[in-house]
């Protein structure tokens, strides 16, 4: 038992039996974190559901202030980034480090495109006084379409949910840059690519959350 570590590759830490066990443990740990993330966003979705049950008219009116086209484009941008992350993992598995770096770079760029679109959406809304909670101060044009006493609540939910999702995208970009640099230093190969795999899981979850946010916020008629 004591000497098994001598025969293992350098990346295997001494408390693991072998590389596979280390890989599976890391993945399990990430999934437990994702469970936590799902329940964290779950609390916000729960708030959304309660307020939608209470004020169904508010949600159908307020959604008119959100731009379906930009929301849809951002959905496709995130799906594209999920695809490139999956391709990055595939490259790492096949020992194609150049492909890994290219796919990571495209993912970072797509994530930035998502944030830029989101920035312009926020900027446009705040310009019209469509702000959350007590900052709600809409222009007469907005009030003509959306005259609901609880309108600020919809946008509190909108800003908190998309804002925290946006923070996750920013964290994801940081992780991808870290992976890109490490891949450049030759840290990853087909035998060891655990950080790429579990960052991929995180990124797909960020995509999954948006898959639900998009129809629930933008596509209410």
């Amino acid at each position: 038992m004591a000497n098994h570590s001598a025969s293992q590759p350098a990346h295997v830490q001494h408390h693991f039996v072998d590389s596979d066990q280390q890989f599976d443990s890391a993945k399990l740990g990430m999934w437990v974190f994702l469970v936590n993330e799902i329940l964290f966003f779950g609390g916000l979705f729960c708030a959304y559901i309660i307020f939608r049950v209470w004020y169904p008219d508010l949600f159908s009116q307020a959604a008119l202030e959100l731009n379906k086209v930009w929301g849809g484009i951002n959905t496709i941008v995130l799906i594209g980034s999920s695809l490139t992350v999956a391709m990055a993992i595939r490259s790492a598995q096949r020992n194609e480090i150049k492909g890994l770096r290219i796919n990571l770079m495209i993912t970072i760029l797509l994530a930035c495109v998502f944030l830029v679109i989101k920035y312009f959406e926020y900027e446009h809304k705040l310009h019209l006084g469509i702000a959350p909670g007590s900052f709600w101060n809409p222009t007469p044009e907005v009030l003509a379409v959306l005259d609901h006493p609880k309108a600020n609540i919809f946008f509190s939910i909108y800003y908190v949910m998309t804002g925290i999702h946006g923070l996750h995208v920013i964290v994801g970009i940081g992780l991808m840059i870290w992976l890109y640099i490490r891949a450049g230093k030759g840290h990853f190969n087909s035998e060891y690519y655990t950080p790429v795999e579990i960052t991929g899981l995180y990124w797909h979850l960020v995509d999954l959350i948006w898959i639900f946010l998009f129809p629930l916020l933008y596509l209410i008629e």
Partner: protein
Amino acid sequence: MSTTAHKHEHHVASAFQLWLIGGALVVLTILTVVVSSLPIPAPLDIITALSIALVKAFLVAAFFMGLYWDVKFNSMLLIGALVFFILMVTVTLLDTMYRNDIVPSF
């Protein structure tokens, strides 16, 4: 997990497969936008939108996140999270839906 040495190959998804899933997700996104502008009556429109979102979520979880090829325990964690989410929503709605008056200031 057994302590005996087990050498299993990690599943490598084919590029075609991944592009197919990506394409399906884009098609479903366009579909959900198109469907949202159709005059579908109240409960059905949200059911349609959520059904499409659930299919998309399944594709991402099963193939991009690799649960389809992965050890079953990770799938169990995801399903467990969803069960507890549904429990949280159900119990909260059992309160909020059956109040005579909405909580003041909410």
